[in-house]
């Protein structure tokens, strides 16, 4: 039984904390998110040099072969630093899907470029009607000779406006809700017949809806087995979910600490508001929410080695439920205890809350995962 980090992990944590602390003020975030891409490509190159882009990838693809703990350590620092970078879409979704797709020299080459920071990627897995259901796919891919022809719309594609390549889930057989018959394709962002609408989410990141109008994709760009895409997709998203929950925890800690510090300096009625017992107890609740979430995060990290097991799946659901609920509570309290200031764009509090809300809606919110948990326990 051991919850301490290895020396390597400790080093990763320290260097991440140091680098972000020195290079990424809140003003920097404000500046970066105001750029067209929603982040600073220069910063991306820097963290590539630091090796962070290689953390989750397998050695065979030139990665650092990091485990769940490594990922947690890094993502928590991103959260604490309120860092705006497309690590989730390009590394954890696009990159990891290729990484998990099996040995394939062309994927390896592509991942090499990803790790060097020369390529931005996206995973187009959401559709308007699907809510959080990965298997609800209307977009179709029809085989014709040596290629597939994709038609349909994918929504809310993270990093869509920036991506050079994207992976799309489309139906090669079965009905809209079937788990079978979903295939994954590697598509060039500039493929003909592919158009998009760009917009932003409230955390400042750019997203796009992609419209596939008879987009031709050569058969060798089918990833994994035809019709068996869902399983691969789930594995990638399970890991991304764990990573983003670690980022959420970082955000929750930041919001809690900021609020406590603010309560020690903000004066009303001649005393600091931190001296009011009612507020003290509520800040204790914020702190408790963080510790509780960390405990469940550790639990999921400890079971991550055996991904497909019922136990790990249940831990992931529980983690998403608690991160969602506690994240909401912490965010709302952070704003409330900051008073009017918490509602201004110039303070980091509101931005932390918005990022937290985006994370909590990604891959299914608390209620969604709670029901998954219920179904799982009824089946068991």
């Amino acid at each position, binding site marked *: 039984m051991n919850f301490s980090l290895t020396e390597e992990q400790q080093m990763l944590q320290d260097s991440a904390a140091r680098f972000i602390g020195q290079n990424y003020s809140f003003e920097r975030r404000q500046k970066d998110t105001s750029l067209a891409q929603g982040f600073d490509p220069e910063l991306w190159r820097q963290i590539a040099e630091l090796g962070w882009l290689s953390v989750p990838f397998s050695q065979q693809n030139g990665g650092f072969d990091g485990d769940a703990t490594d990922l947690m350590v890094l993502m928590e620092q991103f959260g604490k630093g309120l860092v705006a970078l497309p690590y989730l879409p390009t590394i954890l979704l696009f990159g990891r899907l290729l990484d998990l797709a099996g040995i394939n020299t062309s994927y390896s080459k592509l991942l090499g470029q990803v790790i060097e920071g020369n390529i931005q990627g996206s995973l187009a897995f959401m559709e308007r009607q699907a809510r959080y259901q990965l298997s609800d796919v209307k977009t179709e891919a029809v085989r014709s000779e040596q290629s597939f022809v994709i038609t349909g719309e994918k929504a809310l594609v993270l990093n869509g406006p920036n991506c050079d390549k994207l992976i799309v889930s489309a139906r090669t057989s079965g009905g809209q809700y079937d788990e079978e018959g979903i295939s994954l394709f590697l598509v060039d962002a500039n493929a003909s017949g592919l158009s998009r609408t760009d917009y932003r989410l409230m955390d400042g990141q750019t997203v796009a809806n992609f419209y596939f109008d008879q987009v031709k994709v050569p058969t060798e760009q089918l990833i994994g087995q035809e019709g068996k895409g869902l399983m691969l997709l789930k594995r990638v998203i399970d890991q991304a979910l764990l990573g983003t929950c670690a980022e959420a925890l970082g955000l929750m800690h930041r919001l809690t600490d900021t609020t406590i510090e603010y309560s020690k300096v903000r004066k009303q009625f001649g005393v600091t508001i931190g001296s009011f017992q009612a507020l003290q107890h509520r800040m204790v609740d914020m702190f408790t929410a963080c510790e509780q979430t960390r405990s469940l995060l550790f639990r999921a990290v400890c079971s991550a080695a055996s991904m497909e097991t019922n136990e790990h799946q249940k831990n992931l659901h529980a983690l998403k439920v608690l991160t969602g609920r506690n994240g909401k509570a912490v965010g709302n309290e952070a704003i*409330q205890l900051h*008073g*009017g200031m918490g*509602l*201004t764009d*110039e303070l980091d509090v*509101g931005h932390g809350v918005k990022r937290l*809300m985006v994370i909590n809606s990604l891959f299914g919110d608390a209620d969604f995962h709670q029901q998954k948990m219920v179904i799982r326990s009824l089946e068991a």
Partner: protein
Amino acid sequence: MDTHLSADDLKFRDDVRLFFTKASPERAQQLLKNPSTFKQGTLDWQKQLYEQGWVAPFWPTQYGGAGWSVTQSYIYERERVAANAPDVLPFGLKMVGPVIYTYGNEEQKQRFLPGILTGETWWCQGYSEAGSGSDLASLKTSASKDGDDYLVNGTKIWTTHAQHADWIFCLVRTDQSGKPQNGISFLLIDMKTPGITVSPIHSINGVHSLNEVHFDNVRVPQANRIGEEGKGWTYAKSLLAHERTAIARVADSMRRLEKLRQLASRETQGRSVMIDDPVFHARFTNIEVELMALEYMELRVLAAVANNQNPGAESSLMKIKGSEIQQSLHELTIELAGVYGAMETTESATAADIGHDFGNQARQDFMYGRAATIYGGSNEIQKNIIAKHILGL
């Protein structure tokens, strides 16, 4: 014990309904949504109400009020919200107006009331300061006598629509000595006076409606002071209870709840829709039950007012519950929108382009709605008030 409406009241309700159907509130709402047409939309709408004689029904008749009963005002408010018609801006008609006709002198009434009714003068409120949020009485903006004038120095914050305002009503400190409440006076200040600068505050929902208003040796005639020097706090406070009851926004929440029900009956989840999801519907009814209670809590307060009792601390209770309900509605709505609850529409990416017609609004409402538990005296302050004045703790 009953809530029946008299024949006259029913007749009145039909008149109000008819008016609102004719007044085409949708157009007004459209104009108000867009910042560039917001001011015009506000003025147009107020003009319509003014011509109908309903712009300030709650004012005493001699100043242009409609002389409605409590029940009539209640009916009017319900019908207005049901018709999704905009409310008037409160700063002139609900805040400074009453102060002027209650505590102002004849000359001030003559001079200011007409412009408030017609909308010719746009008023904003100068109470809060960066240093004094919940502790309003600690405000520092000073007004020092200089001949027949005051020289005003300081900064007001959270001033809604100051960028459009012609006049501002301020609480200023005219006496540094003694109990903070006693040194405060109530001043009316022309926004065109030299030394006033307005700087915008951008909110986390991306909208600009709040401002900072800086006063640098602003010269204000003493004739613009309402009532006695040092009594400003009393004048301002006399309005707070009414404000709190209004902040509960019961009717508005009822409309939002219905809207949410419709959206959830449409939003798909696999083969079914969200309203059929038992857990979602349980959260929905949790809010519905609270709102059903709040609706009658409001009626109880109104009935008390009708019997010339003071709503008093019960209004704090309504403020707490009302704002909590508003926020849980915002929360459930944005969660219904899923990831779309995070989307930001633009000219080049409208709701139609993105394919989601309530995500952007849900986001803005949620973010802006966080203020409901903060402004008008934070909910923590309301609890202190109840503990002290009702529970005697």
